[in-house]
């Protein structure tokens, strides 16, 4: 009887890096000069430079947040704030420098684009290197491009919304992002337009000690409907990189906007992201947010329900293995009547990984007939992992109907045994239980992403089995 041992693959598949020659890079460290240099390079209008400087001065004043994860090891002087990989934003992959194109090939982006995407944007370190939207959507007025390009091409609409949801003074990392932002996606979908296939952006950090500060601005005009989806990866380095993005989403009356993020950072990335949406009358905002990897993630997608009848659904999943801390959650701020929110958080921790759910649910005075449902489930795969839950609530109207449920569980030995009795190894059985636990998330993804997500989770779990 020969019974082979299954081998375990614990590689981070996206850990490869490229040696490319950057077109431009700033010196390490941050100063007012660096902020001016970035703005000058981008040939920006005066108001944007002022905005950046506002961000910079607030960044200096603001103390480091001490209520979340451990940020002590971030050395702001050792980070490069701007790295330009190519001269321009390509409109076909041929215009993208070879090495960078090869990277995106390896990540499967052009292939996905051919198969099922309405538009694709690709950012490499600080700049967007590729952008393309299907022609018929462009003809209907759909705008999907790099944020820098949008500032030039659509200055009015840009100025009207930029930093209105997340002002420079919002928090230390939003201030930093405002000061040095570069790249990100700009989406505008006009009134009544429905985009069937997803618009996708892909963010890749390549360089060591790099800070990626993309700025994404998404505007869904009245009664439109679309799905924006983004993925992120970085190489594995011994020193840390910083990803501090800001995302602002505006859903005008009747709009249905879905924003999906699949972040799969290597475990040396600090991922500190401010994501906020305004949902106007009868609109729907859906955040679908997955965090795998990173040394520390602090991210709490927030939706301000500002118009009567607005709805939001926030689905947040997190996986933390060895050396990772996912401090994630969601916020729903009900400022108008008849608004509804549903928050679902699912987290998995393993091999000493740590997950924190931090949520905020608020119902403002005057917001009547609010419904909200919060559910957080944590699954710990072993005894050395950690899970905490901090749900904050401020409810100022008595007729609000609020439900909150939280569970913390371990994988049952009997379930593993049951699955193993059907020929699955212990690892496979564990994977299956975890994937089942996260299925509520996976089933919301386009098929291709669901397959990829499941594969990533399997790899993480196998790599972290004690």
């Amino acid at each position, binding site marked *: *009887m020969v*019974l082979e041992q299954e081998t375990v693959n614990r590689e981070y598949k996206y850990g490869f890096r490229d040696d490319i020659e950057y077109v431009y890079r700033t010196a390490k460290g941050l100063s007012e000069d660096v902020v001016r240099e970035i703005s000058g390079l981008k040939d920006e209008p005066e108001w944007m430079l002022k905005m950046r400087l506002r961000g910079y001065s607030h960044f200096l004043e603001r103390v480091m947040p001490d209520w979340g994860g451990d940020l002590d090891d971030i050395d702001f002087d050792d980070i490069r704030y701007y790295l330009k990989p190519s001269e321009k934003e390509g409109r076909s992959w041929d215009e993208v420098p070879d090495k960078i194109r090869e990277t995106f090939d390896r990540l499967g982006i052009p292939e996905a684009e051919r198969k099922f995407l309405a538009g694709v944007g690709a950012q490499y370190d600080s700049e967007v290197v590729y952008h393309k939207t299907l022609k018929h959507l462009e003809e209907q007025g759909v705008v999907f491009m790099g944020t820098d390009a949008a500032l030039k091409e659509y200055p009015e609409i840009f100025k009207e919304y930029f930093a209105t949801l997340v002002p420079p003074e919002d928090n230390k990392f939003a201030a930093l992002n405002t000061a040095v932002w570069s790249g990100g996606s700009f989406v505008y979908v006009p009134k009544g337009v429905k985009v069937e296939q997803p618009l996708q952006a892909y963010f890749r950090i390549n360089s060591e000690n790099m800070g990626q500060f993309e700025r994404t601005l998404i505007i869904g005009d009245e009664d439109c409907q679309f799905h924006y989806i983004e993925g992120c990866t970085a190489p594995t380095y011994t020193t840390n990189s910083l990803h501090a993005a800001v995302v602002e989403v505006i859903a005008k009356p009747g709009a249905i906007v879905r924003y999906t993020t699949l972040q799969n950072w290597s475990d040396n990335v600090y991922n500190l992201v401010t994501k906020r949406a305004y949902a106007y009358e009868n609109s729907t905002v859906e955040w679908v947010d997955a965090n795998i990897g990173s040394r520390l993630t602090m991210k709490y997608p927030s939706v301000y329900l500002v118009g009567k009848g607005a709805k939001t659904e926030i689905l947040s999943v997190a996986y933390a293995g060895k050396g990772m801390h996912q401090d994630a959650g969601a916020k729903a701020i009900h400022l108008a009547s008849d608004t509804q929110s549903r928050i679902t958080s699912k987290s998995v921790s393993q091999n000493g990984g740590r997950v924190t759910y931090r949520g905020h649910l608020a119902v403002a005075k005057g917001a009547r007939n609010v419904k909200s449902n919060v559910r957080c489930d944590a699954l710990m795969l072993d005894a050395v992992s950690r899970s905490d839950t901090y749900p904050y609530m401020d409810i100022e109207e008595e007729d609000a109907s609020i439900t909150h449920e939280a569970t913390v569980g371990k994988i*049952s*030995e*009997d*379930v593993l*045994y*049951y*699955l*193993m*009795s*059907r*020929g*699955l*190894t*212990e690892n*496979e*059985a564990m994977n*299956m*239980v975890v*994937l*089942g*636990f*996260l*299925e*509520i998330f996976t089933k919301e993804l386009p098929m291709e992403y669901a397959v990829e997500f499941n594969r990533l989770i399997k790899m993480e779990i196998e790599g972290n089995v004690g």
Partner: protein
Amino acid sequence: MTALEVKNLHAGVDGKAILHGLDLTVRAGEIHALMGPNGSGKSTLSHVLMGHIRYEVYEGDVLLDGTSILGLLPHYRARLGLFLGFQYPQEVPGIKMGSFLNAAYKRMHPENEMEIPEFFAYVDERMNLLKLDPSFGARYLNDGFSGGEKKRAEVLQMLVLAPRIAILDESDSGLDIDALKTVAEAIDHFASPEVGILLITHYQRLLDYVTPDFVHVMVDGRIVRSGGSDLAQKLEELGYKWIKEEATVEVT
């Protein structure tokens, strides 16, 4: 030839000794019924055979095709062709029955490569036999299944995974009268010269449809009596009292 042999098995769980010297041999082509009062150790035997890690073997051996399997984890035993239909199947939310069966089948029969549509047709055929609605393929594994549905799903897994030795632990309990007949017919259909079957049951009803070659009675962790199918009938009429009394006489 395929055979499962249990030899002088002493075993228990969580420090409690439950099986006290059990002998049993199930060969391909045979149907065995194992009966016995509640708590006599039937399910314990099934878990020891399948290899639940919490169960300990103190003495004795279990052989499959002449080789001891006691050192093997459950998945290896499964891949060698051993199957257990659970008395209390576990629920696995989020995992669809169909994809679970597919994953399990691939592990158990790596030599039979089937494309997904072909495999699902193969599963549907077996669902038909059990009068399970095809929509069960898209349901989460045992999640929210009724008691009877869980039992049928266990039998379905047996039919799909096609083991060589199948142990069914009370797969007939909790079934309505029609479902019992359906399940019994499915087991009968599955029985063949290539497979050995051990039916753990409390009722003659199942055995009316699936005639066992051997009936064993277990009391206090031992098989105290074995016989033909008439033994089950006698138990149905008289209960276990007389056997227990005889067993006590034998021991003293």
